């Protein structure tokens, strides 16, 4: 491979070398099962306890409120399905938004098949959940509100503290999918009145296949994966010690570098957005310009289609995404872009670039030039552009 500019950090990140370093001893040296009697297993147990503490501190939680899972999707499934089950005698109504990740949306659809009722809140043109609509949607049988902390496609950060407050006032559980936000923006579960929170290790330079669900003490959630007594009997399965250790290390790094890293990302992000908006016609930015993840850029380029754009960027060594990487197997345009009011043909022309700690000004300049070239080239090829030009000449 030649030059590579990796701008798909929302899909996954490079595992930090320090993280791998921290994990290594737990593969071949301290490989003991953490749930054993002998001292050797105690090494694993201690390592898990340390990671749990680091992580709990990062979100203002207590150690025993952190439950390790296999990632964001499992955390989301667990949070929704198992609270739905535990609170069904109270009610069967759940509120979420139209721009959640599929791990939430498909879980909600499954819950609907099980007899639950789900309200999918609209968002405004920037992807912000409307608080008054949230309030209106609340019913006596509402048991759960699940709104993502920040959107994975357009980077919009939701008013989580306000939502938490509303949920608390109505005595309704509040879950947030913080898979994209964790490590990028400060989170405090107490101040924000969050009862459950999902994360995934590989989104913040930790390993893939590990995540956690924060569960506030007192929440009567049931198990999702039944079996052994791990994770205080709530999540069965031999503990993924290296994964947990790596996650802990990644969180430690993400927290300690957050301010500096995101300040730099914000600067590069806004520089790229501003230049592309100025230099590429028929372009729009998706997502809120202010309440936005530090590393997220999302455009729609009219008259062209995203996959072609991605392949041509790839030919120049730039890795980006169009809609969520998780759904690239699908042919539908992004449900998020549709929800913020874009027509299908515009939604098809989206490009998401998500920066990382290593992204440089040079990378960004190179990328801007590449975008300009490629968009022009694809428009040259586009019958839609032809029609538009003919109509307006």
């Amino acid at each position, binding site marked *: 491979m030649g030059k590579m500019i990796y701008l798909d950090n929302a899909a996954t990140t490079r595992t930090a070398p320090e993280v791998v370093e921290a994990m290594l001893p737990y593969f071949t040296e301290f490989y003991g099962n953490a749930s054993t009697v002998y001292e050797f297993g105690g090494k694993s147990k201690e390592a898990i306890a340390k990671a749990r503490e680091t992580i709990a501190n990062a979100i203002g939680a207590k150690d025993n409120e952190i439950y390790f899972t296999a990632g964001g999707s499992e955390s989301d499934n667990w949070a929704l399905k198992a609270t739905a089950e535990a609170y069904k005698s109270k009610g069967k109504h759940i509120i979420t938004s139209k721009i959640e990740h599929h791990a939430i949306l498909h879980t909600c659809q499954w819950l609907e098949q099980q007899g639950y009722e789900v309200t999918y809140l609209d968002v405004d043109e920037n992807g912000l959940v409307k608080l008054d609509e949230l309030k209106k949607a609340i019913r006596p049988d509402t048991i759960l509100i699940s709104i993502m902390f920040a959107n994975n496609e357009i980077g919009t950060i939701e008013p989580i503290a306000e939502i938490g407050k509303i949920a608390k006032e109505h005595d309704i559980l509040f879950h947030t999918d913080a898979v994209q936000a964790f490590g990028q923006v400060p989170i405090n579960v107490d101040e924000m009145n969050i009862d459950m929170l999902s994360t995934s290790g590989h989104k913040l330079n930790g390993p893939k296949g590990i995540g956690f669900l924060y569960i506030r003490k007192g929440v009567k959630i049931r198990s999702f994966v039944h079996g052994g007594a791990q994770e205080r009997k709530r999540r069965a399965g031999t503990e993924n010690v290296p994964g947990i250790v790596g996650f802990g290390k990644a969180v430690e790094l993400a927290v300690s570098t957050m301010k500096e890293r995101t300040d730099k990302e914000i600067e590069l992000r806004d520089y790229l957005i501003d230049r592309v908006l100025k230099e590429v016609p028929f372009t729009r930015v998706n997502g809120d310009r202010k309440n936005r993840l530090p590393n997220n850029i999302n455009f729609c380029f009219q008259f062209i289609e995203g996959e072609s754009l991605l392949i041509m960027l790839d*030919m120049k060594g730039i890795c980006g995404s169009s809609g969520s990487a998780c759904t690239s197997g699908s042919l539908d345009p992004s449900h998020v872009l549709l929800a913020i009011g874009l027509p299908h*043909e515009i939604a098809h022309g989206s490009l998401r670039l998500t920066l990382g700690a290593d992204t440089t000004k040079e990378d960004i300049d190179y990328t801007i030039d590449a975008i300009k070239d490629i968009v022009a080239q694809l428009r040259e090829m*586009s019958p839609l552009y032809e029609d538009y030009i003919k109509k307006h000449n």
Partner: protein
Amino acid sequence: MYSEKVMDHFKNPRNMGEIENASGVGTVGNAKCGDIMRIFLDIDDNGIIQDVKFKTFGCGAAVATSSMATELVKGKNVQEALQVTNKAVMEALDGLPPVKVHCSLLAEEAIHAALWDYAEKNGIKIEGLEKPKNDISEGEEEEEY
């Protein structure tokens, strides 16, 4: 994800562009589904396709199938062009991922649409050519999980 042939036709699309005053023009697909193909045919008095161009809005496979389809019909007569199936296009490209098979159907249909336009403009009837659908629904049924 794509074969080398597909990537080659995507990177270096053959016959991209338009033909002014073409003998026949066909546009299929829709922006909603993310694929639109437009084929321009220049057909001489002997019914031979002298030139062909395309414009495509769509994914890599859409571009590559358009490109390959134009290559396959160029120099052929109308009846021969009609025989160029989506299967032929796919084979010539060393295959497509399952989710992209509909692109080859679209390419076949775009040729047919251009031929239909040609026939209409010239008031002739081409044996075996039915009025093309403007839209191609996906061939595949998704499994329900």
